[in-house]
């Protein structure tokens, strides 16, 4: 009887602690930091070895196919040389236009490049570990990006390593816009490769294939970063909002390096206004970090 009472007591205590912990109300104990410091070097070494082995394997196949492609590429090179001179002209024109629209280029010291060294052991949560931490100027809440688009946000930082929650995690949400129609909504992760684009009014006409970009209103991600494209939408006449599914631009299975934007980001004051731009207005005229990274 006493044993039963003790077990019930421990079960109760355990579930209470888990409930509190699930609401993120438990104070940080520092244990995580110690464990991460102990395990991350192994993760980093393993990750690098794996990348090297993959590299050798891919290089072998690359050499075989390169030999076949060589004559064809030589012909293409001649054609490319012609277009290079045209590109030079366009580059100069681009520089002039950037100055004209007061485009602020990304300074090199505003992003920190980091390597992905580990993934979340559980399929229930989508997080990754990167090899940069507080020592490199990273703090909790900073946006993590790649040239293809948004990766996620830093949620925990130790001295040399950080944990990033991916936008596909169910606890993730990004304020977003449809690039063409400027319809606003929230991109929510659902623990698969697909995300949901929620709270988009039914009156907004959206087509599959349309690009979803960050709105800059959440105070985390700068405006204009690519998130994904619409793959499926359902309109339910009894509901106020549409059900939109999107495929992320970033392939999270192949993520090896990321950029962390350490520049303090102020929510875009104009974003609210520009989110109400009329359909048909050319969104490409808007300067954005994603465009800059892509360039």
């Amino acid at each position, binding site marked *: 009887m006493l044993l039963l009472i003790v077990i019930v007591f421990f079960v109760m205590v355990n579930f209470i602690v888990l409930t509190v*912990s*699930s609401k993120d109300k438990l104070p940080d104990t520092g244990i995580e930091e110690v464990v991460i410091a102990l395990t991350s070097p192994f993760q980093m070494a393993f990750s690098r070895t*794996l990348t090297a082995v993959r590299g050798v394997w891919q290089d072998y196949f690359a050499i075989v196919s390169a030999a076949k492609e060589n004559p064809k590429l030589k012909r293409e090179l001649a054609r490319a040389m012609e277009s290079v001179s045209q590109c030079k002209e366009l580059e100069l024109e681009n520089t002039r236009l950037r100055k004209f629209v007061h485009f602020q280029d990304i300074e090199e010291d505003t992003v920190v490049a980091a390597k992905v060294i580990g*993934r979340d052991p559980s*399929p229930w949560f*989508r997080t990754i570990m990167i090899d940069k931490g507080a020592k490199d100027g990273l703090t909790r809440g900073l946006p993590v990006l790649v040239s293809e688009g948004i990766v996620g946000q830093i949620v925990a930082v130790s001295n040399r390593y950080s944990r990033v929650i991916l936008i596909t995690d*169910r606890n993730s949400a990004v304020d977003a816009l449809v690039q063409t129609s400027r319809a606003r909504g929230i991109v929510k992760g659902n623990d698969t490769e697909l995300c949901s684009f929620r709270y988009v009014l039914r009156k907004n006409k959206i087509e599959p294939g349309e690009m979803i970009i960050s709105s800059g209103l959440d105070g985390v991600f700068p405006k204009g970063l690519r998130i994904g494209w619409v793959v499926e939408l359902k309109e339910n006449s009894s509901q106020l909002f549409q059900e939109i599914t999107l495929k992320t631009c970033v392939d999270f299975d192949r993520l090896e390096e990321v950029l962390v934007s350490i520049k303090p980001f102020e929510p875009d004051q104009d974003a609210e206004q520009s989110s109400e731009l009329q359909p048909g207005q050319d969104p490409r005229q808007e300067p954005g970090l994603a465009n800059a990274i892509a360039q």
Partner: protein
Amino acid sequence: MIRFFFYLCLFLLFFLAQTSNLWCSYLSNQRFDLLLVIVLSLSLKFSHIRILVAVFLLGVAMDSVSGGPFGLYLSAYVWIYVLIRSLKAFVHFQNIAFLLCIGVIAVVMKNLFFLFVLIMGKGLDAVYYNDLTTMASQAAWSVVGVPLLVLLIDRLEQAVLVMAEKTFQQHLYRG
């Protein structure tokens, strides 16, 4: 001491395999937690209090690298250990039927902890249909995977112990 290093290496191997880029998202959803196999092996073979400490440390390690709330792996592992310890008094641990059952029970139990935390943290809306399919596929894989891995670890451990014994005796003989 040799056992300690054997399980430490095993932990590192499973830990790295589980947190590396080896798996694509699809496979990652299907596979069960490999560390569960270590917890089961330890719980089945040993009864010493130090094993509880080891299970506790495994939980802490996994909680530290996971994006879930702290205590999730810890609770799951410790309660699985307690359950197996009470069950093994009745059945021999190499009984295949027993291994099949505890494999599924352990995987389902761990996933139920995850489900509990999700519901408490975000409400029922946070639970999707694919969570249930993930849970089902993990349980299905565990039917084959867990007994196989537990038995494999057992054989491997025996082989390592025999090898260590031989090496020790050779050194003793030379000395």
